[in-house]
Protein backbone atom coordinates (compact mmCIF):
# COMPACT_ATOMS: atom_id res chain seq x y z
CA UNK A 1 0.00 0.00 0.00
CA UNK A 2 1.40 3.39 -1.00
CA UNK A 3 1.36 6.45 1.23
CA UNK A 4 -1.75 8.67 0.90
CA UNK A 5 -1.64 11.50 -1.66
CA UNK A 6 -0.76 14.79 0.01
CA UNK A 7 0.70 18.24 -0.61
CA UNK A 8 1.05 19.50 -4.19
CA UNK A 9 -0.11 16.17 -5.66
CA UNK A 10 -3.34 16.43 -3.64
CA UNK A 11 -3.82 19.99 -4.87
CA UNK A 12 -3.43 18.81 -8.47
CA UNK A 13 -5.93 15.99 -7.85
CA UNK A 14 -8.52 18.39 -6.46
CA UNK A 15 -8.07 20.96 -9.22
CA UNK A 16 -8.28 18.13 -11.79
CA UNK A 17 -11.51 16.85 -10.24
CA UNK A 18 -12.95 20.39 -10.22
CA UNK A 19 -12.09 20.72 -13.92
CA UNK A 20 -13.80 17.39 -14.64
CA UNK A 21 -16.97 18.67 -12.95
CA UNK A 22 -16.81 21.91 -14.91
CA UNK A 23 -16.11 20.29 -18.28
CA UNK A 24 -18.83 17.61 -18.03
CA UNK A 25 -21.53 19.92 -16.65
CA UNK A 26 -20.94 22.72 -19.11
CA UNK A 27 -20.12 20.49 -22.13
CA UNK A 28 -23.24 20.73 -24.27
CA UNK A 29 -24.40 23.98 -22.70
CA UNK A 30 -21.37 25.84 -24.05
CA UNK A 31 -20.63 23.76 -27.17
CA UNK A 32 -21.05 25.70 -30.40
CA UNK A 33 -23.59 25.09 -33.20
CA UNK A 34 -25.60 21.94 -32.74
CA UNK A 35 -24.03 19.04 -30.93
CA UNK A 36 -26.15 15.98 -30.23
CA UNK A 37 -25.50 12.81 -28.29
CA UNK A 38 -25.62 9.55 -30.19
CA UNK A 39 -28.20 7.29 -28.43
CA UNK A 40 -25.70 4.49 -27.87
CA UNK A 41 -23.17 6.88 -26.35
CA UNK A 42 -25.89 8.30 -24.14
CA UNK A 43 -26.66 4.76 -22.92
CA UNK A 44 -22.98 4.15 -22.13
CA UNK A 45 -22.71 7.47 -20.29
CA UNK A 46 -25.82 6.65 -18.28
CA UNK A 47 -24.29 3.46 -16.86
CA UNK A 48 -20.76 4.82 -16.40
CA UNK A 49 -21.17 6.09 -12.81
CA UNK A 50 -22.73 2.90 -11.39
CA UNK A 51 -20.04 0.72 -13.01
CA UNK A 52 -17.14 2.93 -11.91
CA UNK A 53 -18.39 3.26 -8.35
CA UNK A 54 -18.89 -0.53 -8.12
CA UNK A 55 -15.37 -1.08 -9.48
CA UNK A 56 -14.12 1.10 -6.59
CA UNK A 57 -16.30 -0.38 -3.85
CA UNK A 58 -15.72 -4.11 -4.49
CA UNK A 59 -11.91 -4.24 -4.12
CA UNK A 60 -12.07 -1.63 -1.35
CA UNK A 61 -14.38 -3.92 0.65
CA UNK A 62 -12.96 -7.34 -0.22
CA UNK A 63 -9.24 -7.03 -0.93
CA UNK A 64 -7.03 -7.49 2.08
CA UNK A 65 -3.27 -7.90 1.66
CA UNK A 66 -3.63 -8.89 -2.03
CA UNK A 67 -6.29 -11.53 -1.29
CA UNK A 68 -10.07 -11.38 -1.54
CA UNK A 69 -11.60 -11.86 1.90
CA UNK A 70 -15.14 -13.23 1.60
CA UNK A 71 -15.28 -14.39 5.23
CA UNK A 72 -18.00 -13.24 7.62
CA UNK A 73 -15.21 -11.91 9.84
CA UNK A 74 -14.46 -9.17 7.28
CA UNK A 75 -16.04 -6.13 8.99
CA UNK A 76 -16.27 -4.08 5.78
CA UNK A 77 -18.07 -6.89 3.96
CA UNK A 78 -20.60 -7.29 6.78
CA UNK A 79 -21.15 -3.51 6.97
CA UNK A 80 -21.79 -3.25 3.23
CA UNK A 81 -24.12 -6.29 3.24
CA UNK A 82 -26.18 -4.83 6.08
CA UNK A 83 -26.37 -1.43 4.34
CA UNK A 84 -27.38 -3.14 1.10
CA UNK A 85 -30.15 -5.08 2.87
CA UNK A 86 -31.46 -1.83 4.35
CA UNK A 87 -31.50 -0.21 0.89
CA UNK A 88 -33.77 -2.98 -0.39
CA UNK A 89 -36.49 -1.64 1.91
CA UNK A 90 -35.72 2.05 2.32
CA UNK A 91 -33.95 4.93 0.61
CA UNK A 92 -33.25 6.58 3.94
CA UNK A 93 -29.51 7.17 3.98
CA UNK A 94 -29.33 7.72 7.76
CA UNK A 95 -30.56 4.18 8.38
CA UNK A 96 -28.19 2.85 5.75
CA UNK A 97 -25.14 4.53 7.34
CA UNK A 98 -26.15 3.87 10.97
CA UNK A 99 -26.86 0.15 10.49
CA UNK A 100 -23.81 -0.37 8.25
CA UNK A 101 -21.53 1.38 10.76
CA UNK A 102 -23.07 -0.60 13.65
CA UNK A 103 -22.52 -3.95 11.93
CA UNK A 104 -18.97 -2.94 10.91
CA UNK A 105 -18.13 -1.85 14.47
CA UNK A 106 -19.60 -5.02 16.01
CA UNK A 107 -17.48 -7.29 13.81
CA UNK A 108 -14.41 -5.16 14.52
CA UNK A 109 -15.04 -5.39 18.28
CA UNK A 110 -15.56 -9.14 18.08
CA UNK A 111 -12.07 -9.65 16.65
Amino acid at each position, binding site marked *: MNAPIDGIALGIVIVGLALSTFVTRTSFLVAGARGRLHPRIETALRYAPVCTLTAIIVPDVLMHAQHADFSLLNPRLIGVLVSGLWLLFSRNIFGCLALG*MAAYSLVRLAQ
Partner: protein
Amino acid sequence: MIPSQPERRAAFKAGQRAILQSLPGAATWGVVSGVAMVKGGLTVPWAIFMSLTVYAGSAQLAALPLIASGMPVWVIVATGLVTNLRFVIYSAALRPYFIGQPLRKRAALGFFMTDFTFTLFMRAAQEGWLPERHRDAWFAGVCSNNWITWQVSAITGIVAASYVPTDWGLEFTGTLALVALVGPALNARPALVGAVAAGGVALLAHGLPYRLGLFVAAIAGIAAATLADSWSARRATAQGEASS
Protein backbone atom coordinates in the same frame (compact mmCIF):
# COMPACT_ATOMS: atom_id res chain seq x y z
CA MET B 1 -25.98 37.00 -8.32
CA ILE B 2 -29.54 38.01 -7.33
CA PRO B 3 -31.08 39.81 -10.35
CA SER B 4 -32.22 43.40 -9.85
CA GLN B 5 -35.12 43.57 -12.32
CA PRO B 6 -38.39 42.87 -10.38
CA GLU B 7 -39.67 40.16 -12.76
CA ARG B 8 -36.35 38.36 -12.82
CA ARG B 9 -36.04 38.69 -9.09
CA ALA B 10 -39.47 37.08 -8.68
CA ALA B 11 -38.42 34.18 -10.94
CA PHE B 12 -35.21 33.75 -8.92
CA LYS B 13 -37.17 33.62 -5.68
CA ALA B 14 -39.70 31.18 -7.15
CA GLY B 15 -36.74 28.93 -8.03
CA GLN B 16 -35.40 29.19 -4.51
CA ARG B 17 -38.81 28.09 -3.18
CA ALA B 18 -39.16 25.25 -5.69
CA ILE B 19 -36.04 23.44 -4.39
CA LEU B 20 -36.96 23.81 -0.69
CA GLN B 21 -38.41 20.31 -0.34
CA SER B 22 -35.26 18.58 -1.61
CA LEU B 23 -32.92 20.60 0.60
CA PRO B 24 -33.03 18.16 3.57
CA GLY B 25 -31.80 15.43 1.23
CA ALA B 26 -29.02 17.68 -0.11
CA ALA B 27 -28.03 18.60 3.46
CA THR B 28 -27.79 14.94 4.50
CA TRP B 29 -25.52 14.11 1.60
CA GLY B 30 -23.48 17.25 2.29
CA VAL B 31 -22.80 16.24 5.89
CA VAL B 32 -21.93 12.68 4.82
CA SER B 33 -19.48 13.90 2.18
CA GLY B 34 -17.88 16.26 4.72
CA VAL B 35 -17.40 13.52 7.31
CA ALA B 36 -16.11 11.09 4.68
CA MET B 37 -13.53 13.58 3.36
CA VAL B 38 -11.99 14.27 6.77
CA LYS B 39 -12.15 10.66 7.97
CA GLY B 40 -10.82 9.55 4.58
CA GLY B 41 -7.63 11.40 5.46
CA LEU B 42 -7.96 14.99 4.17
CA THR B 43 -7.06 17.85 6.49
CA VAL B 44 -9.83 20.38 7.23
CA PRO B 45 -8.51 23.07 4.80
CA TRP B 46 -8.06 20.55 1.95
CA ALA B 47 -11.53 19.12 2.58
CA ILE B 48 -13.13 22.58 2.48
CA PHE B 49 -11.17 23.42 -0.68
CA MET B 50 -12.35 20.18 -2.30
CA SER B 51 -15.98 20.80 -1.37
CA LEU B 52 -15.96 24.38 -2.72
CA THR B 53 -14.18 23.60 -6.00
CA VAL B 54 -15.24 20.07 -6.99
CA TYR B 55 -18.87 20.36 -5.83
CA ALA B 56 -19.77 16.84 -6.99
CA GLY B 57 -20.52 14.44 -4.13
CA SER B 58 -20.13 11.16 -5.97
CA ALA B 59 -16.83 12.13 -7.64
CA GLN B 60 -15.50 13.30 -4.26
CA LEU B 61 -16.57 10.08 -2.52
CA ALA B 62 -15.11 8.01 -5.36
CA ALA B 63 -11.76 9.83 -5.12
CA LEU B 64 -11.33 9.39 -1.36
CA PRO B 65 -10.33 5.70 -1.18
CA LEU B 66 -8.00 6.26 -4.16
CA ILE B 67 -6.34 9.24 -2.44
CA ALA B 68 -5.98 7.24 0.77
CA SER B 69 -4.31 4.31 -0.99
CA GLY B 70 -1.89 6.57 -2.87
CA MET B 71 -3.09 5.92 -6.44
CA PRO B 72 -1.40 7.92 -9.23
CA VAL B 73 -2.83 11.42 -9.72
CA TRP B 74 -4.08 10.74 -13.26
CA VAL B 75 -5.96 7.60 -12.14
CA ILE B 76 -7.87 9.58 -9.49
CA VAL B 77 -8.72 12.45 -11.85
CA ALA B 78 -9.79 10.06 -14.62
CA THR B 79 -12.00 8.15 -12.18
CA GLY B 80 -13.67 11.38 -11.09
CA LEU B 81 -14.19 12.27 -14.74
CA VAL B 82 -15.91 8.95 -15.50
CA THR B 83 -18.10 9.34 -12.41
CA ASN B 84 -19.07 12.80 -13.68
CA LEU B 85 -19.88 11.63 -17.23
CA ARG B 86 -23.62 11.55 -16.49
CA PHE B 87 -23.50 15.36 -16.40
CA VAL B 88 -22.80 15.34 -20.15
CA ILE B 89 -26.29 13.86 -20.62
CA TYR B 90 -27.78 16.48 -18.30
CA SER B 91 -25.94 19.24 -20.13
CA ALA B 92 -27.30 18.04 -23.48
CA ALA B 93 -30.83 17.89 -22.04
CA LEU B 94 -30.66 21.44 -20.66
CA ARG B 95 -29.16 22.93 -23.82
CA PRO B 96 -32.43 23.65 -25.70
CA TYR B 97 -33.76 25.64 -22.73
CA PHE B 98 -30.75 27.93 -22.37
CA ILE B 99 -29.31 28.15 -25.86
CA GLY B 100 -30.47 31.78 -26.18
CA GLN B 101 -28.45 32.87 -23.16
CA PRO B 102 -24.95 34.36 -23.31
CA LEU B 103 -22.06 31.89 -23.12
CA ARG B 104 -20.90 32.97 -19.69
CA LYS B 105 -24.34 32.44 -18.20
CA ARG B 106 -24.69 29.01 -19.79
CA ALA B 107 -21.33 28.02 -18.31
CA ALA B 108 -22.34 29.26 -14.84
CA LEU B 109 -25.74 27.52 -14.92
CA GLY B 110 -23.96 24.35 -16.05
CA PHE B 111 -21.35 24.39 -13.29
CA PHE B 112 -23.92 24.87 -10.53
CA MET B 113 -26.21 22.15 -11.91
CA THR B 114 -26.31 18.94 -9.85
CA ASP B 115 -28.32 15.69 -9.79
CA PHE B 116 -30.89 17.36 -7.51
CA THR B 117 -31.31 20.60 -9.46
CA PHE B 118 -31.31 18.93 -12.88
CA THR B 119 -33.99 16.45 -11.79
CA LEU B 120 -36.13 19.29 -10.47
CA PHE B 121 -35.73 21.31 -13.66
CA MET B 122 -36.71 18.40 -15.92
CA ARG B 123 -39.67 17.52 -13.69
CA ALA B 124 -40.90 21.11 -13.86
CA ALA B 125 -40.53 21.04 -17.64
CA GLN B 126 -42.39 17.72 -18.01
CA GLU B 127 -45.17 18.61 -15.59
CA GLY B 128 -45.61 22.02 -17.19
CA TRP B 129 -44.85 24.30 -14.25
CA LEU B 130 -41.54 25.62 -15.55
CA PRO B 131 -41.96 29.41 -15.88
CA GLU B 132 -42.40 30.68 -19.45
CA ARG B 133 -40.00 33.59 -18.99
CA HIS B 134 -36.77 34.14 -17.09
CA ARG B 135 -36.01 30.44 -16.84
CA ASP B 136 -32.35 31.26 -16.33
CA ALA B 137 -33.18 33.34 -13.24
CA TRP B 138 -35.50 30.60 -11.97
CA PHE B 139 -32.82 27.93 -12.38
CA ALA B 140 -30.23 30.23 -10.80
CA GLY B 141 -32.54 30.45 -7.77
CA VAL B 142 -32.87 26.65 -7.65
CA CYS B 143 -29.10 26.15 -7.93
CA SER B 144 -28.14 28.87 -5.46
CA ASN B 145 -30.22 27.42 -2.62
CA ASN B 146 -28.89 23.95 -3.37
CA TRP B 147 -25.28 25.22 -3.43
CA ILE B 148 -25.58 27.11 -0.14
CA THR B 149 -27.25 24.14 1.59
CA TRP B 150 -24.65 21.69 0.28
CA GLN B 151 -21.63 23.82 1.26
CA VAL B 152 -22.93 24.74 4.73
CA SER B 153 -23.75 21.12 5.53
CA ALA B 154 -20.49 19.78 4.02
CA ILE B 155 -18.39 22.25 6.04
CA THR B 156 -20.42 21.37 9.14
CA GLY B 157 -19.60 17.70 8.53
CA ILE B 158 -15.92 18.51 7.90
CA VAL B 159 -15.52 20.48 11.13
CA ALA B 160 -17.58 18.04 13.24
CA ALA B 161 -15.65 15.02 11.94
CA SER B 162 -12.33 16.61 12.84
CA TYR B 163 -13.31 16.27 16.53
CA VAL B 164 -14.17 12.56 16.26
CA PRO B 165 -11.35 10.13 17.19
CA THR B 166 -9.95 8.12 14.27
CA ASP B 167 -10.44 4.74 15.95
CA TRP B 168 -14.23 5.03 15.63
CA GLY B 169 -13.72 3.87 12.06
CA LEU B 170 -15.89 6.68 10.63
CA GLU B 171 -13.89 6.59 7.36
CA PHE B 172 -16.07 3.60 6.49
CA THR B 173 -19.05 5.99 6.06
CA GLY B 174 -17.47 7.00 2.72
CA THR B 175 -17.72 3.41 1.42
CA LEU B 176 -21.26 3.08 2.78
CA ALA B 177 -22.25 6.34 1.07
CA LEU B 178 -20.98 4.94 -2.23
CA VAL B 179 -23.11 1.84 -1.59
CA ALA B 180 -26.11 4.13 -0.99
CA LEU B 181 -25.40 5.86 -4.33
CA VAL B 182 -25.11 2.60 -6.27
CA GLY B 183 -27.87 0.59 -4.53
CA PRO B 184 -31.00 2.39 -5.80
CA ALA B 185 -29.57 2.53 -9.36
CA LEU B 186 -29.45 -1.28 -9.46
CA ASN B 187 -33.25 -1.36 -9.84
CA ALA B 188 -32.74 -1.29 -13.62
CA ARG B 189 -31.56 -4.66 -14.95
CA PRO B 190 -28.82 -3.30 -17.30
CA ALA B 191 -27.30 -1.37 -14.38
CA LEU B 192 -27.29 -4.55 -12.29
CA VAL B 193 -25.60 -6.50 -15.09
CA GLY B 194 -23.02 -3.73 -15.47
CA ALA B 195 -22.32 -3.57 -11.73
CA VAL B 196 -21.84 -7.36 -11.44
CA ALA B 197 -19.44 -7.31 -14.42
CA ALA B 198 -17.55 -4.28 -13.08
CA GLY B 199 -17.26 -5.76 -9.59
CA GLY B 200 -16.14 -9.18 -10.81
CA VAL B 201 -13.54 -7.79 -13.21
CA ALA B 202 -12.31 -5.37 -10.53
CA LEU B 203 -11.45 -8.34 -8.30
CA LEU B 204 -9.82 -10.35 -11.09
CA ALA B 205 -7.88 -7.38 -12.47
CA HIS B 206 -6.79 -6.03 -9.10
CA GLY B 207 -3.14 -6.90 -9.63
CA LEU B 208 -2.76 -5.20 -13.04
CA PRO B 209 0.12 -2.70 -13.29
CA TYR B 210 -0.46 1.08 -13.16
CA ARG B 211 -3.76 0.41 -11.35
CA LEU B 212 -5.37 -0.28 -14.70
CA GLY B 213 -7.71 -2.76 -13.04
CA LEU B 214 -10.15 0.00 -12.10
CA PHE B 215 -10.54 1.13 -15.71
CA VAL B 216 -10.64 -2.35 -17.17
CA ALA B 217 -13.42 -3.11 -14.67
CA ALA B 218 -15.35 0.09 -15.39
CA ILE B 219 -15.16 -0.43 -19.15
CA ALA B 220 -16.22 -4.08 -18.84
CA GLY B 221 -19.18 -2.98 -16.72
CA ILE B 222 -20.23 -0.20 -19.11
CA ALA B 223 -19.99 -2.60 -22.08
CA ALA B 224 -22.06 -5.24 -20.27
CA ALA B 225 -24.70 -2.68 -19.22
CA THR B 226 -24.94 -1.22 -22.73
CA LEU B 227 -25.38 -4.72 -24.23
CA ALA B 228 -28.02 -5.61 -21.65
CA ASP B 229 -29.78 -2.31 -22.36
CA SER B 230 -29.97 -2.86 -26.13
CA TRP B 231 -31.01 -6.48 -25.58
CA SER B 232 -33.91 -5.51 -23.28
CA ALA B 233 -34.92 -2.68 -25.67
CA ARG B 234 -35.01 -5.16 -28.59
CA ARG B 235 -37.07 -7.60 -26.54
CA ALA B 236 -39.50 -4.80 -25.62
CA THR B 237 -40.05 -3.89 -29.31
CA ALA B 238 -40.45 -7.58 -30.23
CA GLN B 239 -43.11 -7.96 -27.56
CA GLY B 240 -44.79 -4.77 -28.72
CA GLU B 241 -44.95 -6.08 -32.30
CA ALA B 242 -46.23 -9.50 -31.17
CA SER B 243 -49.09 -8.00 -29.16
CA SER B 244 -50.21 -5.52 -31.83
